[in-house]
């Protein structure tokens, strides 16, 4: 049993624990490689099925290939797919590309606020109707009490302090200084009314582990991760105004892995292409305390 098997076992175990303990459970799917590995682990956990609804926060500024890929897998894997969007902020043009707010405020409006309102059911949810082949407003407005998220401890500082099962209070806020203990394979699965729990099955994975696992399992990933001839590729996916491709010739999973292990990316942080992190003093802590993933 190698370390990928171990990581996979822990991930599957945690996903099943979440499914058994939370009645209103969902999984955030950002379309990126991490949450797609999470989706794959879910199919492993449930023997090919995905009995947990997936939630995507659309900002309407996502790179178009991401949305195409999302809807293709939704159909192919028969996923319960829900997306939420902060249409108020978009209508009021309170976004960074509109030139009215800074990057951090834009992230807070289009991602944090949209996420919080999609999770608590106060915002509109759009659900994919497999028969009609399109999205329709979801009538279910019940709050989600368990939210599975694909964050990794090695991504940035505040995430390295996370627990597998991490409580959020009524305002979706995270008290990083007073987290519950978590030991053996017992997790925080009991929660007070109005609060919810974030569940992090990928906490122990590194960026390299993710790619090694994608290669081993043959997981389909969005083509933006690979150089298609212009010597540019995305290392991390987000909104097009704030996410820049990196200079790289890697055109396949193998080449990405090689580049991470020995190439020029060995000592460069993964989110270095994300402009909002720099505006937040190099970390996501401010955004994450407020409920950002």
């Amino acid at each position, binding site marked *: *049993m*190698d*370390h*990928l*098997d*171990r990581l*996979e*076992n822990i991930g*599957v*175990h945690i996903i*099943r*624990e979440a*499914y*058994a303990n939370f009645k209103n459970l969902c999984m955030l799917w950002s379309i990126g490689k991490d949450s797609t590995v999470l989706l794959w682990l879910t*199919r*492993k*956990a*449930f*023997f*090919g*099925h995905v*009995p947990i609804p997936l939630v995507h926060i659309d900002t309407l500024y996502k790179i178009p290939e991401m949305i195409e890929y999302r809807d293709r897998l939704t159909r192919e894997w*028969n996923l319960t797919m829900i997306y939420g969007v902060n249409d108020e902020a978009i209508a009021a043009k309170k976004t960074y590309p509109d030139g009215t707010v800074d990057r951090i405020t834009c992230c807070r409006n289009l991602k944090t606020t949209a996420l919080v309102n999609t999770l608590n059911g106060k915002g509109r949810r759009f659900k994919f109707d497999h028969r009609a082949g399109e999205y329709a407003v979801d009538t279910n407005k019940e709050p989600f009490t368990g939210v599975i998220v694909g964050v990794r*401890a090695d991504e940035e*500082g*505040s995430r*390295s*302090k996370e*627990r597998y099962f991490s409580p959020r209070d009524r305002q979706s806020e995270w008290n*990083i*200084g007073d*987290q*519950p*203990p*978590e*030991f*053996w*394979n*017992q997790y*925080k699965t*009991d*929660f*007070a009314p109005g609060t919810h729990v974030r569940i992090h099955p990928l906490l122990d994975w590194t960026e390299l582990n993710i790619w090694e696992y994608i290669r081993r*399992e043959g997981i389909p990933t969005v083509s933006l991760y690979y150089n298609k001839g212009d010597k540019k590729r995305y290392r991390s996916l987000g909104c097009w105004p704030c996410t820049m491709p990196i200079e790289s010739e890697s055109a396949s999973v193998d080449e990405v892995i090689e580049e991470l292990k020995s190439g020029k990316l060995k000592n460069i942080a993964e989110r270095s292409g994300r402009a909002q992190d720099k505006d937040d003093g*190099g*970390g996501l*802590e401010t955004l994450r305390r407020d409920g950002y993933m």
Partner: protein
Amino acid sequence: MGLREKLNLVFVGHVDHGKSTIVGRLLADTDSLPEGKLEQVKNNCEINSKPFEYAFLIDALKDEQSQGITIDAARVFFKTVKRDFIIIDAPGHIEFLKNMITGASRAEAALLVIDAEEGIRENSRRHGFLLSMLGVRQIAVLVNKMDLVGYEKSVYDGIVSEYGNFLRGLKVEPKLFIPVSGRNGDNITPGNNSMGWYSGKSVLELLDDFIPYESPVLKPFRMPVQDVYKFTKFGDGRRIVAGTIDAGSINIGDGIVFYPSGKKSRVKSIESFNSAPGEMMAAPSTTGLTLDEQIFIKRGELAAKAGEKQPTVSSMMRVSLFWLGKMPLMKKKEYILKTGTFKVPMKLDSILRMIDAESLDDCTGKDQVDRHDVAECILNLSKAAAFDLAEDNPLTSRFVIVDDFEIAGGGIIIESLDDRQSWVRDMVLLRNYKWERSAIPLDKRYERYNQKSMLILITGGKDVGKKTLARALEKSLFDEGKFVYFLGIGNVLYGVDADIKVRDRKENAEEHIRRLSEVSNILLDAGIILIVTAIDLTQYDLEIIKTTVNPESIEAVWVGDEGSTDMKYDLYIPTIENLDEAVGMIKEDLQNKGVIFRIW
């Protein structure tokens, strides 16, 4: 391409005994620091005119890695030629004990640091205790600050003897004691040692001697059931028992027994998602099994393999536990205990001894377990759990206690104690083990009769109309086409119980209840809705019945004045003046529980 071995290592010990200094020294002396880090920290010290300390390196790294939040266990990556290490630098301050436990519970080996000058302190012992309880079996002790005691051998020997005895009292054999000086670097790496009397290994050499954790694949098979999946909605007919194997292994065709119910079946297949179905699965894999016979089991049961040592089942246990809750662990208060996937209400029965951090001696006179205390206690569960004892199978001896939605404590089970139901349970386990299953699954019977089987216990004081209600209910259900039977208690007393002569003796009364329960169990297996009446059933009586009959198939109804016994009922009917109304109340409850269905 070979993947490198990884090992999680934790540094623990009393605050200010020099954990961070040793880790800093280790990183510096093995060139494991990012380029320029050492110079940068030294420069900073010069500018601020304070003496350089190796501990600053860790804080500087942590700052970099964690934006200055240093109250939690931070992780530092380190490698030797042999393998990669993740060093967990656990906080030594008592306030952060829960973070120390969170960090240490994932460690495969621990280095416990003791200050030679200050000697063994409160947390030296407490951490040693917690490591043994958390299951960290590989422990080495670093006697630090040897420079401050003039590298004196007698000081080192004193600590080796005293702390060695302490660890052996916990049944932990320390791997090694090393005299070190984090500040001067003695015995951190080979070749730097000013103590001629010590010729043993350095810390760096010790690290490669640790063995990565291996799952106990040779122990008896144990798998806590996480769930039973049936994704019929997606056209999948498989009924998969899912879980993570804690110990041992299982093959297709093996007999499998589930506890605490004692139900038995055989492994038909081992399921997987995108690889060929396997023949065998071993710890620590997550897996899914289908069974030959469709027995009713659910999350919380502990699966074992027939023919191997079976787990223990009881509702009373002697445990060692540590308490982290803001509120103390108190008697009479109800908590939730979780072991494996089993979850059950529990109470603290008694405190046998407090393990005072100063010694392992008794510390009497306490009637509650306070925050950060370690204690040996007896716990009383409201239902029996299946588990192993710590010395047999550590993983399945572990439990946590939940108070007010938070994990407030944890521990290991040392001994199973006989509870009041154990005599009944032993018989039930044997009965389930020997049970001859019908070829017609219960599900099919439910479909045929359009109902689920249920035992309706109607109880209450004398002359409140229990039998009248029972007969009316029987008739009403029968008229609706239900398969229902009212079992008069006299039919049992003078037939099945004919050999019990003295009817009012307490143990005989218990035997009556047990036999009534067994008869009920057979009738429920036939798919019947069974109605039984009895005077003043107690909670204890109900516990015996629940030990015998699946608790989910029992509906306890109390009629008339409350309070004559302590029984917890599902439905209360104050009076049956209006018989139809009383019958309607029970039927409505049955509908809510999905036993019968309203005809639309």
